[in-house]
């Protein structure tokens, strides 16, 4: 199951302070204060901030350089790549590289396949996970905790241990080289998400469920009208993380998909890499890689706050 081998963190109770949420509160501890007078302490603080900013900026350059280098290379000529000293700003800009890649390999179908897998898995899987989380958190059922612990134990088994039998099963029903082995397991939900939503639901009072029951609402109605709105922020964050994990997955696709038409984007760019490196067509490889990075970069920039908060939440009490 692709979602399981990319376990980012076991989600824990949402407590603790979220970075960036409460500017000022608990931030900016100044350890130098108290040793010297107020004025010089302030001066020291400012100097410290300048130094810290400089160091962080240097680090930021290192973090971004490979990504920037990718983009820059993707706009070069085939020979421009090998020029010394290296050009950071391509001369000339070869925007045609981005036109060329669509004909050079099945990039478009790769994007399509990745979208099909990621969307179907995360949309259906989030629903089934949310339903299960609701039942585990707010409903009475015999052996509930045994079942829950059983599911949790699944997290302890790495995907490589399961991949050979899973492959055999899917091969025996003729699903190899289709997207089904990547989609179907995900439709049954994601244990990490169930865990996280269940924890989140603990903060929702039982009484609202009971009140709705007395009013004659069915459990599905309660789920839709009360539970879904209550867990929306947690659901959204988990959804995005899961989407990115499926989008970026490589091991499961490489096992199941052979023919270019069925391959997901990550496989397509890996094949580009193997194929065009021989022809030293690095601009083409870099353009394809950049295209593969782009959707996640956009999702990240749009949902940056939710993503960062949910990571901080899920791990902070680890």
């Amino acid at each position, binding site marked *: *199951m692709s979602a399981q081998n990319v376990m*980012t*963190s076991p989600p824990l109770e949402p407590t603790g*302070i*979220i970075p960036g949420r409460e500017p000022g509160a*608990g931030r*900016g*501890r100044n*350890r130098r204060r*108290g040793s010297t007078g107020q004025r010089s302490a302030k001066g020291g603080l400012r100097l410290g901030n300048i130094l*810290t900013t400089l160091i962080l900026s240097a680090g*930021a350059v290192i*973090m971004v350089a*490979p990504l920037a280098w*990718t983009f820059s*290379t993707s706009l070069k000529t085939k020979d421009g*790549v090998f020029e010394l000293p290296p050009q950071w700003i391509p001369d000339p800009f070869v925007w045609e590289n981005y036109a060329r890649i669509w004909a050079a390999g099945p990039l478009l179908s790769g994007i399509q396949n990745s979208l099909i897998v990621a969307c179907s898995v995360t949309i259906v899987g989030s629903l*089934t996970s949310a*339903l299960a989380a609701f039942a585990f958190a707010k*409903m*009475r*059922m015999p052996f*509930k*905790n045994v*079942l829950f612990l*059983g*599911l949790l134990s*699944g997290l*302890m*088994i*790495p*995907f*490589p*241990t*399961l*991949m050979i039998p*899973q*492959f055999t*099963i899917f091969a025996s029903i003729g699903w190899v080289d289709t997207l089904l082995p990547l989609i179907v397991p995900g439709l*049954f*939900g994601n244990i990490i998400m169930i865990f996280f939503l269940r*924890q989140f639901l603990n903060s929702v009072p039982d009484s609202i469920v009971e009140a709705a*029951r007395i009013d004659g609402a069915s459990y599905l109605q309660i789920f839709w009208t009360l539970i879904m709105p209550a867990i929306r922020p947690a659901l959204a964050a988990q959804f995005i993380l899961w989407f990115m994990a499926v989008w970026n997955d*490589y*091991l499961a696709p490489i096992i199941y998909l052979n023919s270019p038409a069925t391959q997901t984007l*990550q*496989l397509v760019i*890996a094949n580009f*890499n193997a194929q065009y490196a021989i022809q030293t067509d690095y601009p083409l490889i870099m353009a394809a*890689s950049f295209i*593969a990075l782009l959707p996640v*970069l956009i999702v*990240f920039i749009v949902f*940056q706050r939710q993503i*960062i908060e949910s990571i*901080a*939440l899920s*791990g*902070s009490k*680890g």
Partner: protein
Amino acid sequence: MSTITRRSRLHRKEHQAALVFVAIPVTGFLLFTLFPLLFSVYASFTNWNGISAPVFKGLDNYTKMFGDRYFLKSLWNTLYMMIGIPLGLVISLALALAMNRKMRGTTFFRTVYYLPVISSIAAVAILWQWAFNGDFGLINQGLGLLGIDGPNWLQDTATVKPALIIMAVWKGLGYSMLLYLAALQSVPRYLYEAAALDGASAWQQFRHITIPMVRPVTFFLIVTSIIGGSQIFVEINIMTPTGGPEFESASIVWYIWQKAFDNLQMGYASAMSVVLGLLVFTITFIQFRLNRRNQFSID
């Protein structure tokens, strides 16, 4: 109708609805986790090429494993590459401390340092493969500025593992930094104020307050990084498709994958995957146990 029977009928309805809701993931678990797991264990005792029926061989695969120098090598490589874990922890804690200051631009830095984390490992592997290129790679160009003649990183037995470690640290830094930052921000300020009043130096405060307060995050990161590190595959497969020079970068999952799907030694590969599974299971189990004791409980 008595209250008791009505109540029990209501309960029965609730039980039924709950059962339907959890049936989906439970079925998924049985089909895609438990059954494959049992099958893996069974296959590990057989000679099986994935096509004809498995032939029971007892412990043959397991004894073979410890005489297989490629298996031992890939196990060693996987362990070796975990050097990146402590390195990453130290750097990310330092970064988190820097970003915990009250100053401008921390949101920007957080985003920038987090970019590699969200980038697909396949794309990242491709761009670092290019960065490590011996003649035209970014790394050697940078070293060239310092007057150093860089090696051909991925083709050299001495540098292929360090190269992969550098990349892994770069990719994971933003994640651990963020967790440390969250932990730092939940440390009560009065602890530092009290310590400062008692005349504790910055180093003493760091040593006796900060380090213990972020210990749960450190522990969590160590455990999850070991789990992740034991399953390293994509980078190896893309950057060193043949397992590196003289098998120097083959990881355990890479070797399992190669044995299973290239050499069709499914039985032997299953045995190795069971060993890997036991390892990961043990580490995760420890983590869950300690977590449960320290942090939260299941009901």
